[in-house]
Structure formats: C-alpha cells, structure tokens
C-alpha cells in the first residue's frame, strides 16, 4: 500500500482530499456527524494551550501540508487510546497523555493515527466488512453444517486485514518520525510499557497475561510483542542523538498532571497504577507522584498499605510542606492506623492550608 519513496523522504501527499465514491461519502457523512457530537461534548478538554501543543507536535511530525487536514479533540478518558475518523477528526484520550513520556512518543502516536487517515483505512475496512457480511448471508442461506465455519473464516479475514492496516500505519508513522528528526526507538518503548502495564493489571486481578499469545484469531491489533519487535527493528539503524523533546512535553503536561493522575487512581486498578507510577517516577519521585502513590495505597486499605501510604505522604510533604492534599491523606491514613494524635495534627494542617475545603465540615468532626 505504501507508495515507494527513497529513504529520508515521505511518500507523496495528495493534499485536501474529498470523498470520491458512494461508500466514502457515506462514511464521511457519519464521521462529520460524530465529530459534531464530540466537538460539543462535556468530555472534551478545550484548553487552548494544550490543544495548540498537540497540534504543533502533529504538524512537526507529519509536516504542515499534511496536518492541515486534521482536527484533534482531546477526550477525558483514563484509558490509553487514540483514534482516527476517515474525515480527518482525531480523538486523543487523556490516559494516553498521562502515559506518554516525551514528544517523540506523542509524535509516534499522532503519526500512527494520521497514517490511518492518509492510507484511508476506514474505507478499506468498511468495504471488506461489507463484502464479508454479504458472503456470510449467502453462506447462511445455503445452510448446511459448514455455514458457521464459513462465517468464522470471513470474520477472521476482516480482522486479519485490520492487523495488516495497523502494521502499515506503524511503519508510515516510523517514516514520519525519521523525516521529522524524532527518536524512532520511542514507539517500541511506549508499546513495551503499555504491554507491561496491561500485564500488571491482569496479574493484580489474578488473570492471565495475554502478551505471549500467538496471534489471536479475533485480535484486531498485532500482538504487542510482535509490534515491539518490528518497531524496534525499524528504529535500529537510526543515527544517535535524535530528538525526544522530554522537557517540552513535561512542561506542556504540568498543569494537567494532577487531574490525569486523579482519574487514573479512581479506576480501581492497584497493580497497573503502581506500575505506571513507577514508570512516571523514573527520573525521581515528585510530590505529585508520591501523593498519588499514597492515595493508591490508602484506598486499598490493607493495614500494611496504611503504613506505606503514611510514608509516601510524609515524603511528599518533605518535598513540599504546603502540599495540602498530602496532609489530608496522611491524617486519614494515620487515624485509620490508630495513630490518633498525629493524624489529627495532619488534618489540622490540611484545614489551615485549605480552610474552605469542600469536605472541611466533615473532617472537622474527626478532630474532636
């Protein structure tokens, strides 16, 4: 599917594209309607600076001419996800922004979604599905013991095709990063971490890891292991010293970190969140991350968790004595552990720091 291009160049880009066929016009109409709903949704983050930043990274990754055809909507959802509609409307979940570490990783994800758009994958998938559906109806009408077998085979062929599309999008995205000067190894790193986190979530819920499954019959994506391998191989020959843009990414996300961490903590996923916090703290534990870890342990409520939580809150307070939420968490954790005096002291400090806190009247009852 990829047009032939010499290394270091991108395949030619047609510019502003308009739907050509009946199928395509129908798909665009549906996508336009979906986009109208998302645009006005309460779940979309409209902050101008954050939106401008994502757009800037996309434009730097795929080039100005290409990014003009795309609108990005940032959706408040703690899961790791992003998706692309055929009319050029992209959704990026806040859960992805929490997990991504630098601009190169963000560029690889945005570039991957853009590649679906450029290669017009939705249309191809749609035609394939309709074709398979028609065949399945015929198979059903003809009856006989083989009908279910035929249907399963056809469903399989539809998903097989999606996997090929995902790989294609990965490879074009890797090409974008190469031309834009971003570190291409990051895409493999990102998938490695997502796979590890998924494993941790499964382990915490006493479920089986799916990472080493052979290519699943109904899997829509290449298995993470396969994906990590080919992405790493694609980046193996890149020159050293490529740009990651870690500082710029951190600065852009700083105002959002606390909100995104709070959304993650409320997902009831202890093991996955513990892994994620560890990854985010690779360059050191900040008061924000220590507080989040304190909350994670306090909310699990094992007696040993309360001891650990108190320690994390204390460390956060050592870094920032005015971290009010840590004082609150410390107070509640200590009260639950039976350390009444120290607990009340911390809660008093919280109420001194935030006298108008929404839960102040309730917490005040714990002080007497």
């Amino acid at each position, binding site marked *: 599917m990829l047009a032939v291009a010499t290394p270091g160049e991108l395949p030619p880009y047609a510019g502003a594209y308009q739907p050509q066929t009946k199928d395509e016009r129908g798909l665009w109409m549906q996508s336009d309607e*979906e986009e109208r*709903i998302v645009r*006005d*949704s*309460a*779940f979309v983050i409209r902050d101008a600076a954050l939106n401008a930043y994502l757009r800037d990274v996309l434009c730097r990754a795929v080039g100005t001419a290409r990014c003009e055809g795309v609108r990005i909507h940032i959706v*408040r*959802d*703690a899961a790791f*996800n*992003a*998706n*692309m*509609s055929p009319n050029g409307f992209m*959704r990026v979940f*806040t859960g992805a922004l929490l997990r991504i570490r630098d601009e190169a990783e963000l560029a690889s*994800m945005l570039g*991957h*979604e853009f590649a*679906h758009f450029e290669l017009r*994958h*939705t249309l191809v*998938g749609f035609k394939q599905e309709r074709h398979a559906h028609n065949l399945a109806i015929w198979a059903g009408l003809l009856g006989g013991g083989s009908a279910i077998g035929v249907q399963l085979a056809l469903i399989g062929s539809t998903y097989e095709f999606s996997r090929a599309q*995902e790989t294609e999008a990965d490879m074009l995205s890797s090409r974008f990063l190469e031309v834009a000067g971003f570190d291409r190894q990051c895409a493999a790193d990102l998938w490695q971490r997502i796979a590890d986190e998924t494993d941790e979530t499964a382990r915490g*819920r006493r*479920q089986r890891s799916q990472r080493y499954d052979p290519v699943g019959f109904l899997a*829509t*994506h290449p298995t993470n292991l396969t994906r990590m391998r080919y992405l790493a191989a694609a980046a193996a020959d890149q020159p050293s010293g490529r740009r990651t843009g870690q500082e710029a990414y951190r600065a852009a996300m700083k105002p959002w970190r606390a909100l995104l961490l709070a*959304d993650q903590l*409320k*997902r*009831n996923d202890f093991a996955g969140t513990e892994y994620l916090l560890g990854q985010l703290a690779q360059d050191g534990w900040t008061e924000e991350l220590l507080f989040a870890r304190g909350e994670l342990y306090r*909310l699990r*409520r094992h007696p040993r968790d309360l001891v650990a939580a108190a320690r994390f809150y204390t460390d956060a307070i050592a870094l920032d004595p005015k971290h009010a939420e840590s004082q609150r968490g410390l107070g*509640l954790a200590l*009260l*639950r552990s039976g350390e009444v005096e120290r607990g009340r002291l911390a809660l008093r400090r919280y109420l001194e720091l935030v006298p108008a806190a*929404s*839960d102040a*009247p*309730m*917490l005040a*009852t*714990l002080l007497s």
Partner: protein
Amino acid sequence: MTRSFPRIRTLALPLLLASATAAIAGNTLIVPGQPVAVAKSTLTVVPSREWNKLGARPGRNTESWTLDGAPLNEVTFYGGIENDRTLFREVSKKEKPLPRFAATMLLTDIPALVESSYRIALDTPLMRIAAAEPAELAGNKAIRFRYVFTLPEEEVERQGEAVATIVDGRLYMLSFEAPTIHFYDRDLPSFRALVATARLQ
C-alpha cells in the same frame, strides 16, 4: 489505538445495572403515609407523597424510586451493604471490577467509594464530590455529600445528594439524583423529607 466503534449505553443507574434476568417485576406505586421497608432490609421510610418503585434493582441490597422516571429524579436506597460487597451489581467483574465496601471504613471514605464506583460502572470521568458534611441518619452519625456527574453520550449534567451511615459494619445510604436543570432543585425537598423519616428497625 483502535478506530472507534459505537458503544451502546443506557441512561439511568437502575436500568444500566439491572441484569436482563433479574426480576423485572414491573414498577409499583408507593402510597403515602405508611412506613415502607426498603431494599430488602430493616430500613424503613414514611413517604409523604406518592412514589414509583422501580422493578429493576441496581444490586442485591438496593432499591430505586422515582417521581417522573429514573432519568429525571431517582432515589436509591442501599439497605445494609455488607463487608467486601460492591455498592451495586458489577457490569463486568473481569474487565471493570468495582471497589468494595469495607466494614472498617470511616464515614469520610464513603464519598470516594461512591465516586469510584460511579466512574467505573457508568464509564465516566465526569463525576466529582462537591461537598461533604456531618449529618444524621435514623439516629446514627452520618455523612451527607453532594456530587455532580455526566453520563457519556448523553451530556446532561446531574447532581446528587446522599446520606450514609455505617451500623454494625453495614452501609446504609439514601441517594437522590436529578438533572441540574429544573429537576434537582424542585425535587430535593421530597428526598430530604424521606431521609428525615428513615428508621432502622
């Protein structure tokens, strides 16, 4: 990084959480002036106006009432949630397990339990606790808290008020939810009147 597929969601909590097989016995009229035991428990209230009891229950020890239909105004009774139980039925135990009530919880832990349960069960990050203060429920020390939430693909902002207490290691709670526009302020007094009559036998 998938392309999106439309997801089907139902609106109201009891409708969403009621399983297809549970006794959907139809709705019943609750007549005013008499004590009514609710949520298969020893919790009773004396309604001062007519309410409709919904046949679909959100969970084992719960029951929902409404005036005009669950999406417009809904009262839910939690009649003694036991240790290590979820507030309502889990949508998917495997993919989206709900947090569980613990008999050792403090009253101040209840709003966080409700917030996390709603976020997971209703699949929304737009759920936050707005305020919490001390209160009394059936003669017991209780917590009253307000919250605001929006369901995905519906976009109507709703407010809620709940009063909760823990007696003998069980959670008893009454909650009221309605759209911010018009219904919440109009029907909140009817809910508070119910709460004032709550007794534990």
